[in-house]
């Protein structure tokens, strides 16, 4: 039915896909697996026409086809339901489902009645209980996901792709989707499912294709694989190999508790989060994308408001209204989303380094450019933070150096608590090492660091303790010898729902 051969794609220096291949038969449900950044999404985007590959061929029904746009993809009967919705927030449920599909009357007007009937058919099919005229932005995230799937179904595809579309669904909704998928399968539709929920794969999928670093590393029948094997293919590591082998100092008990979060909740993203950070340690936060990690870290910063629970910082209960409150309490924040959340592209390197300092102090007091420059210069020398001139605009630097700029901005202020949200996303390996080195030096001087990362190896390398988030809750806390990749992956997939006690022996991982 569908075959993709030798697909390659480069994003500048990054090789997202490297001769990847994928084959789906008629009426087959194929799982497409891989860890974050393995190229799954890119492969799906190649099929949907959003990404044009640099090399490789696509065959549908044995014929070579070119998919250059989403219109091409639709012409070939490919429909995709995305995790980050392709819905238009202000439009109604009907209009979203029937977008571009609406039947027309003879005079070219949209046939409202027919359109409504068709949309309602798919709403019934998926048992979505909403008013068809409600704007989708007012619906629950899980309902939005269902509508996203309904929208894909309405295109009557020959090849249906669910790109982590089940990630935010509740269990009963997943059941409904699966029964619809089975029906489609019987009708001969080929289905590709991208998911991190392993249990789903074994329940519904026939075949399984695993990507790692843009390459197809394993293909096969789901019945012939077990979970350990899948995890092995995804991570490329033998399950018994220990990564976090360097000695963790058993210091937590002697050191002062800096931040204590109790039963924090912020529906629908966070529930019942208990979290501690001690002075001078690096606390890692792991998990799949969108399990509440970035919301949690922004709650600490005061950028989001929580609805229940409490937060104790330096022995005092705190409730910040905005980031500025947290910053004046010596909390710093570094975002991995440089373009949107941290860099000032038009301002100079020096001004970017000084920004944390700009934020505090008297508004109208004298501030000389010399002060900014000398602060920036010493920060650059001390931490080797930046290449390039002080007066050059920040957007003249490479991505890695920009990120070092942002890290340097906060390190130079030496806050008591530094929050990092995936700070090395899209940063090359050298800059990454440099950033890690700088952070370690800081903890030696007593700074505490909370480090969210989507990269497991990075977490195991840098963190003393690792909290893992799953669906807005902490599914595990790994410390000491427990910091091993297979435990991390298992917790990320929600396999251990209960929080493991530190040091408790785990049979499954002993393989």
């Amino acid at each position, binding site marked *: 039915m569908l075959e993709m051969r030798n697909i390659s794609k480069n994003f500048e220096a990054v090789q997202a896909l490297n001769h990847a291949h994928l084959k789906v038969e008629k009426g087959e449900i194929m799982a497409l697996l891989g860890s974050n950044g393995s190229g799954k999404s890119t492969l799906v985007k190649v099929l949907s026409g959003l990404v044009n590959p640099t090399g490789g061929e696509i065959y549908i029904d044995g014929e070579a086809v070119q998919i250059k746009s989403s219109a091409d993809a639709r012409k070939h009967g490919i429909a995709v339901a995305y995790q980050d919705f392709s819905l238009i927030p202000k439009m109604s449920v009907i209009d979203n489902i029937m977008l571009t599909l609406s039947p027309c009357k003879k005079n070219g007007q949209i046939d409202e009645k027919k359109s409504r009937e068709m949309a309602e058919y798919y709403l019934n099919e998926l048992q979505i209980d909403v008013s068809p005229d409600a704007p989708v932005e007012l619906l629950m995230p899980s309902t939005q996901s269902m509508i996203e799937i309904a929208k894909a179904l309405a295109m009557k595809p020959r090849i249906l792709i669910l790109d982590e579309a089940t990630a935010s669904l509740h269990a009963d909704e997943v059941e409904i989707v699966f029964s619809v998928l089975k029906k489609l399968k019987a009708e001969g539709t080929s289905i590709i499912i991208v998911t991190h929920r392993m249990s789903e794969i074994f329940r519904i999928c026939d075949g399984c294709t695993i990507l790692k670093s843009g390459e197809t590393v394993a293909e096969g029948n789901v019945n012939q694989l077990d979970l350990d094997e899948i995890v092995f293919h995804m991570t490329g590591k033998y399950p018994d190999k220990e990564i976090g082998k360097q000695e963790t100092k058993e210091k937590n008990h002697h050191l002062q508790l800096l931040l204590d979060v109790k039963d924090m909740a912020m529906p629908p993203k966070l529930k019942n989060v208990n979290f501690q950070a001690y002075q001078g340690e690096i606390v890692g936060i792991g998990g799949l994308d969108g399990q509440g990690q970035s919301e949690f870290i922004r709650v600490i*910063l005061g*950028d989001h408001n929580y609805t229940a629970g409490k937060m104790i910082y330096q022995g005092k209960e705190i409730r910040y209204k*905005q*980031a*500025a409150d*947290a*910053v*004046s309490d010596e909390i710093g*924040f570094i*975002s991995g989303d*440089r*373009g*949107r*959340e*941290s*860099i*000032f*592209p*038009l*301002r100079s390197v020096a*001004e970017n380094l*000084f*920004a*944390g300092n*700009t*934020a*505090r*102090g*008297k*508004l*109208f*007091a*004298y*501030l*000389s*450019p010399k002060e*900014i420059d000398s602060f920036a210069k010493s920060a650059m020398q001390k931490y080797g933070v930046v290449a390039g001139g002080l007066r050059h605009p920040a*957007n003249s630097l490479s*991505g890695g150096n*920009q990120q070092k700029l942002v890290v340097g*901005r906060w390190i130079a202020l030496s806050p008591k608590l530094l929050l990092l949200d995936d700070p090395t996303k*899209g940063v090359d390996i050298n800059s990454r090492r440099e950033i890690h080195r700088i952070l370690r030096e800081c903890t030696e001087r007593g700074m505490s660091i909370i480090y969210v990362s989507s990269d497991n190896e990075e977490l195991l390398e840098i963190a003393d303790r690792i909290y893992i988030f799953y669906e807005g809750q902490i599914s595990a806390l790994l410390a000491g010898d427990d910091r091993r990749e297979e435990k991390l992956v298992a917790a990320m997939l929600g396999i251990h729902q209960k929080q493991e006690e530190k040091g408790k022996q785990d049979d499954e991982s002993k393989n």
Partner: protein
Amino acid sequence: MNKNKVYYFVKNNQIGMALLLSLLIFVVTIALNPKSLNVNAFGSILSLMSMLTIAAAGQTLVIIADGIDMSVGATMSMAAIVTVGILRGREDPMLFVIAILAAIGVGAIIGLCNGLGAVKAGLPPMVVTLYISNVVNRLQYVMTGGTPEFTSVSLIYKSFMTERLFQVFPVISFFALGMYALIFWLMNRTRYGQQIFLIGNNNRAAQLTGIRTTRLKVINYMMAGILSGIAGFIGAGNSGYIKCGAFDGMTIDTIVAVVIGGTLLAGGKGSYAGTAAGALLLIVLSNGLAVLSVSPSMKNLIMGVILIILLGVYNRAKPVRA
């Protein structure tokens, strides 16, 4: 190589370009009408440029912080009417103090309304400030019944403002210099200035870095209102005849001056020196067209086309490198 240099200059040195174009236009004007080269013409260009530069001070601050203030003209008119109304042609120094405080107060109130609407309420700045400007404009008619009782300041104040030292430098140009010093200090020598640059460049990043962005932007609109109020007070002295909405046309001129001077409409980059250069270009061009006795409609048309060309060359927001 040389071509590249020229290209770089044209593309990146807006202030230099504005000055160069001003010179060019001035030379062409003289060539076409040699009579226009006289001390008086210099003085009047300086006077008009100074007025526009002073008026555009608040606009520069607001645009750098990624906003826009369509109420500059109305605020100036209001402040001018209040000034004239308080002075009533009298010359008591105490009254001057009261008048300038009143002008500042008027500006602060209008600026605060702008700030609350455009920042606190999160409405589009263009729309909010335009409507507030309308309200302020109508208010002048309501207050004065359409025709103010007094339409001019006392002769002494007026001649003080318009007096030309060495026959060339009008006193108002020294006020412009004072304003320049103030704005330069504010923008380049305080945390306030640094913060508005950062906010204008990347508001979200500024917020997460710990800048109180909402508060600062409201203050910034207020600051702009106060500066427009002061501009209105100065304008009342500089202009011989104050009526309702006397300075309403200033709003667009200030935006044009700011933009020609290389300040990005998208915020985050710009300078008051640029605004002054932009004001010069605008005034020289307008002067040239007047000297060549081009009809007002034609003049507006030509200036509109030139503005669009300059906007196209300088003011496209550059994509952020990811």
